[in-house]
């Protein structure tokens, strides 16, 4: 459903610092990465390690202090300006005065796509919100809000989908259901996707590759390929190979936990 070739995401010497000159805090240390087009990459790290900042840099919502990011040949800003990407935010960021349909339709109109009621209704059905089309966000559960937010992100037919802890605010059982039901939707579209999460199982379950980040500033600590069948069936999730990769990620995380709490130099 995406147009043209799936573009690689290239990060060259990307850093990000916050704060006034002289008292800067480095959130992202110099980072070089190539994320393959059409794949799902997970950024994993402890809370507040700078992984969300890295995602915001890729989305063009933040500008790197140094270095450059390219999606194919475009800058994130260029991609953003032609509505080629979509972000699913941690807090869903649904507009409370719009219904579910209104919020999903907003994803289409913001991305300059023509009005299409049928497409919006189909997306709402796909994310499992049939019957709630006319409900406002305040009348939905946390899980349902995230479903609506994913539907909105997909409504603009993005080439690049950025997921910022999209299931971080829901309970474990809901998260498990969402992890089963929603990923096929974007996998079917073949969009390039980047997922930020602090759940090891979620990362292994959803992605083709896992980047483990060190805390403050974010620096690549481990780069782990998820060598599992793309369709993560119940058998795959119960397999030894799945558990082995989870253990590998957990170990990489633990190895770098020592530095937590010590301010960056």
């Amino acid at each position, binding site marked *: 459903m995406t147009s043209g070739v799936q573009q690689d995401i290239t990060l060259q010497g990307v850093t990000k610092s916050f704060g006034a000159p002289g008292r800067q805090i480095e959130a992202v240390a110099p980072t070089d990465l190539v994320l393959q087009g059409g794949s799902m990459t997970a950024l994993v790290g402890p809370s507040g390690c700078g992984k969300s900042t890295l995602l915001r840099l890729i*989305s*063009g*919502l933040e500008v790197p202090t140094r270095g450059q990011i390219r999606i194919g040949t475009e800058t994130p*800003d260029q991609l*953003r*300006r*032609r*509505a080629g*990407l*979509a*972000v699913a*935010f941690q*807090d869903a*960021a649904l*507009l*409370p*005065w719009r219904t579910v349909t209104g919020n999903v339709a*907003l994803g289409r109109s*913001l*991305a300059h796509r023509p009005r299409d009621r049928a497409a919006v209704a189909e997306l709402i059905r796909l994310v499992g919100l049939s019957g709630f089309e006319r409900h406002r966000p*305040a009348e939905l559960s946390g899980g349902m809000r995230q479903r609506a937010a994913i539907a909105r992100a997909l409504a*603009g037919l993005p080439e690049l989908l*950025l997921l910022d802890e999209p299931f971080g605010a829901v309970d474990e059982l809901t998260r498990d259901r969402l992890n089963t039901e929603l990923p096929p939707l974007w996998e079917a579209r073949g969009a390039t996707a980047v997922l930020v999460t602090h759940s090891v199982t979620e990362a292994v379950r959803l992605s083709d590759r896992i980047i483990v980040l060190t805390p403050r500033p974010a620096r690549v600590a481990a780069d782990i390929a998820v060598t599992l069948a793309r369709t993560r069936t119940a058998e795959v999730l119960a397999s030894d190979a799945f558990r082995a990769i989870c253990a590998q990620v957990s170990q990489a995380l633990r190895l770098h936990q020592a530095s937590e709490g010590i301010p960056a130099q």
Partner: protein
Amino acid sequence: MTPRKRAATSRLGAICTAISRLPRGTGTLIFLMIWEVLARISASSFVIAAPSQILDYSLTHAGLLWRAFITTLWAAARGFFWGNLAGILLALVATLLPRSERLVSTLALLVFCLPLVATGPILRVLFGPGDGPQVTLAALAVYYTTFLPVLVGLRAAPQGWFDLIRSYGRGRLIILRDVRLPAALPYAVAGFQIAAPAAFLGAMVGEFTGAERGLGVLTVRALRALDLPATWSIALLAAGVSICTFSAVGALGRRLDLAPPEVLLAAPVGNPSSRWTGAAQAFLALTVTLSVWHVAMQAYDLPRFFAKRPWDVWRFLTSDPAARAQLFAALSETLSLALPGYLAGLALGAALAMLLTLMPRLSATAIPFAIALRSIPIIASAPLIVWALGRGATGTITVVAVMIFFPTLVACRQGLARTPRAVLDIFAVYASSPIRRLFGAQLPAMLPAFFASARMAIPAAILAVTTAEWLATGRGIGALMATVASTSDYNMLWSAIALIGFAAVMSHALVSMLERWVLSRTNPEQLAR
């Protein structure tokens, strides 16, 4: 709470419940009978008109009242429209050009503080006959109370909503259309709700200054003739209009299914980064005010005889010691009455709000009353209060206090209701007394709302004190302005306006400083923005 107090409280509550359980209409009937008796007893003191007299006057003069009412309503409606439009546009400017916010806010406050008593006659000279002054004063009475909440509403959206729009590469206009404007709508409706009665009040004041028709004209006539039934009939009519429009806008808001806004009035903008930025801002505001004043007069080529320029006021104040002394004496007399009234209104409003949280059953009865009384126009109530309490200090102070009391009560109630659930639970876990809970948890939550209403109360106090002096007591700067307006002493009039505007802005700055000082200790999260 001692057992005896507790028993007294529950007895009071029981009385309230008993009253509320009587068949509909019985309470009203008893109320009317007591009123009638009181009026008959006190007939010699010329304060209370009996319901029968009011009914008699209203019926015999129904045609007159109706025509006057329609005239005033039409002027109020147009003022309501233009004033709210101006308030919304100012808020949009302050939001879209964040650097201009402080200047826009200061100028908006300054114009709002100009006393209707003085702007009325000047507008009358400017417009000549017709209803120009009524419409303008109605607009002036409403734009500020719409400007403030809309400004808060336009900025209240969480960062995530802006990020959402930006992640699609869309800019400020789309953010305005899809996020800021819809987010500000409930705030605007809350502003309109306060504006509706205020517009009617403004139109009536406009009619005091030489209009041909309208409820304001009838009021002046009734006051001059000490016609008690007429005064009360008009006061009740104005109060009825106010309550109806207030409720109608509220009902409209509910119909639109808008969530009521959380905080109505803006917390002050964070501390200026240094002492000098604050001073520079103040200097800029002063310069802009004086330039706008001067340039507007020049641009419309208004005759110097009545359209005084800043320079004329300065020369008058520095060259005529007798006039200066008279002016300052009047101003200090006015302020000496406004200040106690202001403080009493704030203290009583906050105290009753706190008391009502200790007695929840009482509040169910008291709050609808307070909301209804809040919208009774000051020009209807001020003469009656002064007649009842005398022309001395007590009457004027009471008028000011009453004007401030009800909005403060309502705002503080809202503040108290915003105490975080989790904090209340902690006090409940330790079975703390209601008093302990009030001072430990609820009072700090109330402070932002209290200070917001303390800032809003400054223009209200000025309006109340000058109106009372003008209509009833004949003393102070309110009466001085009315006198010099009728004798065409425009130097004195403009000087009085300038001094009152200056005093209002200074008081506002003082309250804001106090607010920052207190909130930075009790509610630092309110200031971090």
